[in-house]
């Protein structure tokens, strides 16, 4: 995919969303689609932030509650609750998964030079998952490295062992 014409090389487009009043951004090229909330099939013995799987046009896609993952208090899912379906490269291949957020906000063009490094943070959002902080209209936007978040923050290490011996069940 090519960036939209008119953007300089150092500028990226970010889709931002709201989580508990804060605005977060992800690289728009990783976003495959936006969906409304639907019921999931829970997977047993998985971390609580893995809500389960849904059927996305014949593909089984896991859904992750980002509030839960970031240790924010959980909220009732309402009409503005949105599932952002992202496609990232994890464990050597493209994986599709959905993240549940409070609401989708804006699309911003952000120049890499304008990014500020994140302050040292501890807690459930490791500093590793944050690419940087940007200021848009006097508001702070936290830009996330979604691939890293999926790789290290959502998939557990167990997958790395099994990926070698993995059997694709394809029809």
């Amino acid at each position: 995919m090519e960036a939209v014409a008119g953007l300089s090389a150092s500028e990226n487009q970010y889709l931002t969303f709201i989580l508990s009043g804060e605005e977060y951004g992800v690289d728009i090229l990783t976003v495959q689609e936006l969906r409304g909330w639907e019921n999931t099939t829970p997977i047993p013995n998985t971390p609580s932030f893995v809500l389960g799987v849904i059927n996305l046009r014949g593909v089984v896609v896991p859904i992750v509650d980002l509030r839960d993952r970031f240790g924010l208090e959980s909220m009732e899912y309402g009409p503005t609750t949105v599932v952002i379906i992202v496609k990232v490269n994890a464990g050597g291949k493209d994986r599709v998964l959905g993240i549940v957020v409070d609401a989708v906000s804006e699309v911003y063009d952000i120049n890499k030079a304008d990014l500020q490094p994140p302050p040292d943070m501890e807690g459930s959002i490791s500093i590793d998952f944050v690419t940087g902080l940007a200021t848009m209209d006097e508001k702070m936007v936290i830009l996330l490295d979604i691939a890293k978040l999926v790789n290290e923050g959502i998939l557990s290490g167990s997958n790395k062992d099994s990926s070698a011996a993995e059997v694709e069940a394809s029809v």
Partner: protein
Amino acid sequence: MSIDLDQFKQIFFEESFEGLDTMESGLLSMNDGGTDLDVVNDIFRAAHSIKGGSATFGFSALASFTHIMEGLLDEMREGKREADPDVVNILLESVDEMRSLMTAYQDNEEPDIEEMQKLQQKLEKVCGMEVSDSSSEPKESAAKEETEEGRRLGWNIEFIPHDDLLTTGNDPALLLSELCDLGNVTLSMDDSNLPAFENMNAEQCYLKWSIELLEKDADSVVEEEQITEVFEWVEDECDLLIKGIYPERKASDRRAGDRREGGAQEDRRQGARRTDTRRPSDKKPAQQAVTIRVDTMRIDELIDMVGELVITQSMLGQLGEDFDMAKLVSLREGLEELERNSREIQEAVMRVRMQPISFAFNRFPRMVHDLSQKLDKKVRLELIGEETEMDKTVMEKINDPLVHLVRNSMDHGLEGPEERLAACKEEEGYVRLKAFHQGGSIVVEISDDGRGLNREKLFNIAVEKGVINENDVLTDEQVFMLLFAAGFSTAAELSDISGRGVGLDVVRRNIESLGGNVGVKSVFGEGTVFTIRLPLTLAVLDGQLLQVDAQTYVLPLASIIESLQMDEKSISGLASDTMVYRLRNEYIPIISLSRLFSTGENTEVNLAGKLLVIVEWADKRIGLCVDELLSQQQVVIKSLETNYERVVGLSGATILGDGTVSLILDVSSLMDMSNKAIECVNKSNKLAPANGSQEGV
């Protein structure tokens, strides 16, 4: 003229490897004694096709090597030579060499000529002795002649095409221009046979040529093979006379062109061999398209079924145009028809992927033959159930484990002849490969009548290596399964055949990654049986839908033995929190899915009256406690690992008719999860037989 040869190359390799397999199995059957002319003919034909093809694609090393081999086979065919073990062995070696040459060509690498030349000399020796006293055509090597008669300057070639050369699609002009590539050519054409124009038949060849081929310079030596190679396809349609030109001395007459050729290859397009034989090797090792050979019958069946599907579809479409309730019956009928059609098509498509396991078994006769010589053991290989079909992907993956287990049986399992005689056994041991279907699985057994496994020794080694504790109480089977633990080897010394101690755990992992399992049974002194159990296909599953805590799960139908409503009297507690169910004097551990998956609200449940589904995997049974049994249906397996990761207890997910996702239970890993419970019961089952029989009376 340029034709993309690559697409033909792929086919050539496929056919040639098949040809090699044919040759190999043919040779092995001769090994048992006797020369069956049909078999020899088969081998000869295979060799001949490979020779022709490899010359076409410019694999000259392979072509010339096969050519010599073919000479030997020709003699066998004409009954001039018996198939004694020496000849068969050298031919087998040659097959191996051809295979490695072919692999090199396939990977676009230069083949290793050295090994080939050694073998070639051996072959020539075998041929040569026979030829010199029985044939009027001495086949001395060109090199030998060269030293005798000084440096050769070039060749005189008489090329006299038969009348029908043109009708077989060959063009002399192309052959001649190819000769021009080899050196400086002086050509004279004899058109004395050319009839008057009105009498001329356009498809008949009236011309003949004499050609003087001189080497361009001292460096570019033209061998006779290169010339015969040019005329390879027209050997039977022309008279060819090739003489060397030597300074001063008289060149000896050498006829090389009229070897007999048995194949029906000559009508191949001449054009194909005109294109560049030397392909630029800048390409990366060829990316091989994975292909599958399918019986055309099966494809025809599929097409018929699709035809039926189209008819049903149009019928339903028409029904939908103006539907009223009166037509409900025919709508139902139509839908039933549609269901039948789609099921049949699905089964047929699955069958396309199915191949008989003989594809995997075929390599073993050769392997056992070689290994038995190497190990100095007498071994008989028995193959049973070769026609058993299994999914191609599964088959590809069990190849290595099978090889490993067979090697293992031959190396460690079977004893040498003396030891066998001393143990009052036949001198010849057997290794038996047996494949059969059982439920939804395919089972492959590798058995031998060797010395069996020594329980004590295994146990001690395991303790020594810290795999188990000295005080552990294990069943025989559990002890034998230690063989499959990582870093475990019983062989006293390492050999290059098996026994580096890294093998069997890899075997186990490979098979488990396919959703199968390995088992072993053995009687000390009498033999060992390894059992591999694999799912028949990796794509579709006959499932039983069931409900636990409002969640729907799919259980593979094939693993279900029976379902029953629990009777309170048969439920008893065991150890801390394990429950067992007594079913016909067998205690079966009750596994609560609700608890295993932590989906239940409260863990305290009254089991009485609830449903118990008894499932079996690898001869073990457990009972799964479920809330409700729903319908049975076929489901398409979707991997959870595609977008998430492997989850213990589940083999994947599927999408049900209403679009929701349902999880597929994996019986073997459910058993692992509840292993603790099972062990408890197994122990008590062992202690309880007296008790059980009492109650049974």
